């Protein structure tokens, strides 16, 4: 079960991060096609099977795969790297994969876990942990389903620690504002 970790509102100006993502024209647009292309080109063995499993689950459930897309924005590219550094200090972990996700109204990023290309390499150096931060004000209709919980109407800046970095999750947006979440996969310092 996700565990409430704390709040970042006095440490990080999330409104500024959101504004930068909103005006950016270079966000990474992820689609099933782009994920497939990337994985088929760069992954092999169990990693490739993991990608195929996630997409196969969506196909079997009847999703129209062309409906699925979301955007990712990265520290140092789309917003200040200091945001990542401050967050790393708060959760006391070394950043490995950090991004802001954007899910538009009428879009789901359905049931999945985040297959990581470098997972094996990272695990050789120690355990992994993941956190999510609700960087926007609560927005009607915007929810994150994580493990067995629906996180909804969450105070801006709130951090939740995942039970497992591979947990299944889904972002969904039935409202009228874009949904922005900050994701941090890292290696705990202790």
């Amino acid at each position, binding site marked *: 079960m996700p565990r409430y970790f704390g709040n970042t509102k006095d440490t990080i100006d999330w409104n500024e991060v959101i504004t930068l993502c909103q005006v950016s024209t270079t966000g990474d647009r992820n689609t099933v096609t782009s994920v497939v292309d990337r994985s088929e080109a760069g992954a092999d063995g169990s990693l490739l099977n993991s990608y195929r499993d996630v997409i196969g689950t969506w196909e079997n459930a009847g999703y*129209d795969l062309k409906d699925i897309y979301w955007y990712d924005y990265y520290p140092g590219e789309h917003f200040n790297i200091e945001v990542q550094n401050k967050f790393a200090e708060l959760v006391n972990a070394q950043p490995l994969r950090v991004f802001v996700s954007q899910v538009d*109204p009428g879009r789901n990023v359905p*049931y999945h876990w985040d297959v990581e290309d470098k997972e094996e390499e990272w695990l050789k150096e120690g355990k992994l942990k993941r956190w999510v931060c609700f960087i926007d004000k609560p927005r009607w209709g915007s929810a994150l389903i994580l493990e067995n919980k629906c996180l909804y*109407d969450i105070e801006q800046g709130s951090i939740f620690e995942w039970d497992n970095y591979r947990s299944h999750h*889904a972002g969904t947006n039935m409202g009228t504002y874009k949904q922005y979440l900050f994701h941090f996969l890292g290696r705990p310092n202790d």
Partner: protein
Amino acid sequence: MIKNIGICDILNWDKIIEDVSNTKPEYVGPSHKRGDAVPGLDEILDMWNAAGYQTVAQGGTVAWDMFIPGKQFDQSIVDQWNDWYGLDCKNVWISRIWPGRFAPIHWDAHDNEANIPECKRYHTHIGKPQWGHIFIAGDQAFYNVEQGTTYEWENRKLWHAGTNCGTTPKYIWNAW
């Protein structure tokens, strides 16, 4: 204000779902379109339009299936449900949302809207809790709700929405 009014466990909801799933829905919502003379409709459509929503027919993700008593399921089910809660709801339907589909933020603007008095509305979670089945009404998100649980809404015109980011179709009982 939304109130849990208990679990209706006299009906075999799994069987009801199975039966409706073997029928063709009465229609696929939304049934109204721009230009229909329904009070309140324009506000909803303006909101959807500004947020970028499109129906499945337009290439988007907005669609839900509608099942009606006396057509796709038996009126006796409605009678039993009303009896159980001591209600007399005349407008009842089962909605279904497929994975990836949306009933975005709206309230149920009705053809006869101008002549409907203010009244309460109800919804029942007739499916077993399933990953990714989410329903929002007012300021409350309903997730992992026990099968058969019914909620009473203070007003029929409450804003609500549903979607499905799981892997099985979602069924909700609606009544007023």
